[in-house]
């Protein structure tokens, strides 16, 4: 099912530091960190554990099921970042 990051993300990387499977990118030391608007979750690598949700200070992370109707585009954006 996977989680999805939306554009209220401030790229603080707390989710990156809480993720047990390293499925959130880009990180600060990766090339497109500056230009990308928000961090992205790899939908095929995500294990749907939810560890990223409580550490996000801006409540930017949702399950696919709970993604608000006006933010559905971020599911595709997260997947597209990983070429999926």
């Amino acid at each position, binding site marked *: *099912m996977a989680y999805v990051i939306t554009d209220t993300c401030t790229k603080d990387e707390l989710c990156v530091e809480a993720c047990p499977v390293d499925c959130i990118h880009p990180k600060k030391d990766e090339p497109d960190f500056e230009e990308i608007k928000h961090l992205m979750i790899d939908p095929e690598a995500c294990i749907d*554990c939810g*560890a990223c949700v409580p550490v996000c200070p801006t409540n930017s992370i949702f399950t696919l099921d709970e993604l608000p109707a006006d933010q559905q585009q971020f599911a595709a954006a997260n997947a597209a970042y990983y070429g999926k």
Partner: protein
Amino acid sequence: MPTLAALLAENTREGVLWERLDERRIRCTACGHCCPIFEGQAGVCKVRFNSGGKLRVPWGYVAGAQCDPIEKKPFFHVRPGSLAYSFGMLGCDLHCGYCQNWVTSQALRDPEAVAPVRRATPEGLVRQAVDSGAEAVVSTYNEPLITAEWAVAVFQEARAAGLVTGFVSNGNATPQVLEYLRPWVDLYKVDLKSFNDRHYRELGGRLQPILDSLRRIHALGFWLEVVTLVVPGFNDSEEELGAIAGFLAGISPDVPWHVTAFHADYQLQAPRDTRPEDLLRAAQIGRQAGLRYVYAGNIPGGVGGLEDTQCPGCGERLIRRRGYRILEYRLTTDGRCEKCATAIPGRWAMACGV
């Protein structure tokens, strides 16, 4: 009324299986997730949490405890016909859509999973085990790796009382937890649910830590039996079952492999239940891969001789079973075929008198 999470937070103590990661995070090493955990947060299992820079872990309660036939765990090569005193706590590090123990395993995630807990002591549990005639004490029902410290406390008492100890686990372990358990755990059952990493991620895990753990469990000398719940459309292709069986045979052809039937449960209601012919096919794949002890489970009386233990040397039927019952037992006291004296691997001592 306190929430379940608040109630469980009280029943904790400082854990053993963790390390400091940096000034803000600790890392739990009880399961293959190796969660990095910030102050005030819990790991994926939701029962191990960071409080004041230290890991708190479940302690002093059970969500269920009862005597079951040891065949139900299933351990088929351990004291056949004996009772295993089985206890569990709450929580799991995976979230399988077809879990048959979801009321306990998903209690912290799913508001519909409501499981009562009661306070317990290792001494009290082992006394109950002894009083009910059990020969083994087994941590099961929820994932025992995430409550490993409590299990060891119970097993230390169990050993002192002369009982065998066991884990019924998804196998998503770490080198650290297996080293920690080894002195106190005799038996280890692993559910190898798939051989496909994508599938494992759907269940909330990864394949590699489980494969690494299977090799390590065997190498460390635990008595290992493996179960694969055959779920039509999920893991029952020739290719996937063949890969599982080949991997196990590569560890040892003596590892018993139980292929068991799926019945719709929890969130997974489709596509259909496993049929006897599905299990016969899976068992044949296991035999072709070289496994000597392949069993078909959950369809008592419906799978021919696939509930029985046959001698790989001469083909003699040595243990005849139906469901959890032992109908016939013909191993010698030192665990050999009574006809050709081939040694059958297992922990047979004090076998039942059928």
